[in-house]
């Protein structure tokens, strides 16, 4: 909010922030604008008479995973990866799946793998022991509840037994299956070897090679189940990635193995009906020193996509005009406003390079003697949220917190391990739900937000930084290339919400080190940090016209 009087410098009254209610420039976003104005007016005791807007373009950010997380049908082999921390026994075995209740019949002439539902472990053990005595060849056991060790101790502690298997009802009775439990601290070997898996499942040679994806999917897991799918007979059809059409007429799949082209080169994307300005995509990051984790992330085939579209309407302006008593004025392009706002940073003077890293876009504005270039690229903070959310298995709002704040692992109720490996002690115990969990710190009430992810804090920190590097710094590189490069030794001022994140500033500085720029964080009006550059810039630019 600012008071404007013709011929006088603007009087800046307040800066207020609030959540958006829709994509930039859409009618849905108007409510968020009006809510914010009402809040600011209440605080100020005065209502504004004019709304100043930048010429906005909507950005849509999403994430699409092309593979299922838990159960896959790969090359005619169904697999399950039980999450149990306490399987029983060690080794691999193959046999016919059978219900525990059927073991009262005459024994089958083949090895069997009984499926134990949610019944008391003593009763289950008694039934299994009776079946063994009657001649059933029990080579492994699948248990629905958390009773693997209990049953193993009462039947045979050497038998591979996997427990906490979700949806045991869906395992096809009568099908041939293999079960493996690795020693403590190790991962399955036989099920992760396609040839051995094919032998265990008695797959014929034409289908043996199809087992490679199933074997790969079990790599790194302590226990696994593989089931021969009789009806499948070959590789199942996987969801195909979307195709992007480039300006030269060629197409490029939006997938984890492809890179986005330069700024503005994507002219259309399958399933998106919009006049595109730019499109950018990024996969989940690589875990550089952990091949098993990298594979786990790759197997989800998750790609975050951001699309910047040209507006064909004035929906926001119209929606605001319908609800607001005063004027609604579109002042300037967003990048021009960001430059004006960034220039209020003490010591910056007229900043020749302004980098606005917001929620939807990374905008580069270069204003030198002989040229004035503005480049907007799709994909910024919200895309980082999507990627972080996919890594941690949480929604984008929670991921936004996880992105901004350091994490800890609660080792015991009193000991926290931090991302740098250091430990601190608590004087009162952490909540039970947080013990042995990766947790986000910095909640307003001081509590820890426990995540289900099994990542160590140092691993998560590397993945988080990699996501920021790929998306923010990577997109900035695209913008710089599109701008034809930047002059060495110049001042570049970073503004926008992402510039509040010290990790992003650090990643950008490292990524642009070869350009020898003086990279500084904006401090709009000397008191608002890097945020509000566009809003303040709009006020300054509009004041010049009065």
């Amino acid at each position: 909010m600012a008071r404007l009087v013709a011929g006088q410098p603007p009087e800046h009254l307040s800066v207020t922030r609030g959540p958006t209610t829709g994509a930039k420039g859409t009618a849905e976003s108007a409510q968020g604008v009006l809510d914010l104005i009402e809040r600011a007016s209440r605080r100020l005791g005065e209502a504004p008479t004019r709304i100043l807007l930048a010429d906005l373009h909507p950005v849509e950010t999403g994430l699409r995973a092309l593979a299922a997380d838990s159960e896959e049908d790969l090359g005619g082999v169904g697999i399950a990866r039980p999450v149990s921390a306490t399987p029983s026994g060690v080794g691999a075995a193959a046999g016919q799946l059978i219900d525990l209740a059927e073991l009262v019949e005459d024994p089958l002439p083949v090895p069997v793998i009984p499926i134990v539902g949610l019944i008391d472990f003593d009763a289950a053990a008694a039934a299994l022991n009776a079946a063994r005595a009657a001649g059933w060849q029990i080579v492994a056991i699948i248990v629905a509840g958390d009773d693997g060790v209990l049953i193993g101790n009462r039947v045979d502690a050497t038998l591979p037994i996997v427990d906490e298997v979700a949806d045991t009802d869906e395992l096809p009775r009568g099908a041939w299956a293999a079960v493996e439990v690795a020693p403590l601290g190790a991962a399955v070997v036989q099920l992760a070897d396609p040839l051995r898996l094919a032998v265990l499942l008695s797959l014929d040679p034409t289908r043996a090679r199809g087992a490679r994806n199933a074997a790969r999917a079990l790599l790194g897991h302590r226990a696994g189940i593989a089931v021969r799918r009789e009806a499948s007979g070959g590789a199942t059809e996987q969801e195909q990635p979307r195709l992007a059409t480039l300006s030269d007429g060629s197409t490029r799949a939006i997938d984890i193995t492809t890179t986005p082209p330069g700024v503005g080169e994507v002219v259309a994307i399958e399933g998106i009906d919009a006049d595109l300005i730019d499109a950018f995509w990024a996969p989940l990051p690589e875990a550089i020193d952990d091949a098993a984790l990298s594979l786990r992330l790759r197997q989800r085939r998750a790609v975050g996509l951001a699309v910047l579209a040209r507006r064909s309407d004035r929906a926001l302006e119209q929606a605001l005009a319908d609800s607001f008593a005063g004027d609604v004025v579109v002042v300037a392009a967003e990048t021009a406003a960001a430059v004006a706002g960034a220039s209020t940073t003490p010591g910056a003077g007229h900043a020749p390079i302004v980098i606005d890293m917001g929620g939807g876009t990374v905008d580069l504005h270069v204003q030198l003697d002989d040229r004035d270039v503005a480049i907007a690229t799709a994909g910024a903070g919200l895309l980082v949220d999507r990627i972080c959310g996919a890594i941690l298995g949480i929604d984008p709002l929670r991921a936004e917190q996880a992105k901004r704040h350091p994490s800890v692992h609660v080792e015991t109720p009193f000991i926290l391990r931090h991302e740098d490996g250091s430990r601190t002690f608590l004087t009162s115990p952490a909540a039970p739900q947080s013990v042995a969990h990766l947790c986000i710190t910095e909640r307003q009430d001081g509590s820890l937000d426990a995540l289900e992810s099994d990542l160590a804090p140092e691993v998560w920190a590397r993945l988080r930084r990699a996501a920021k590097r790929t998306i923010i710094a990577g997109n900035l590189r695209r913008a710089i290339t599109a701008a034809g490069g930047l002059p060495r030794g110049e001042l570049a001022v970073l503004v926008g919400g992402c510039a509040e994140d010290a990790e992003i500033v650090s990643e950008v500085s490292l990524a642009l080190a070869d350009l020898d720029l003086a990279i500084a964080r904006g401090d709009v009006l000397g008191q608002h940090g890097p945020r509000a550059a566009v809003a303040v810039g709009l006020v300054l630019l509009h004041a010049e016209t009065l």
Partner: protein
Amino acid sequence: MSAPAVVLASTNAELIRLVAAAFEEEAVPLQVLSEPISARAAAVRSPLGIGLGVDGAELVVALSTGTTGAYFQGPVGDARLLGRAAARLAARRPLGDFGT
């Protein structure tokens, strides 16, 4: 020196069976005391600093330090789940669902 174990104070045979099963499944040692002491007192007697005791209709899990009250608790009927959470606490594994 005492062997490392979590201490359960109870004389209820079914409750002891369920809690012991949870500890066996998690491969965490459990010592049972047939004494009418609180979970906190049991925790003080535990070399691992974790104790379980019954308070009315509740099974209480307590720590020997840092807090004098229950660390968590729930109905005696949830003894298996509460026992599993206590065992996992000792083993530094995520506690999972254990009711209230």
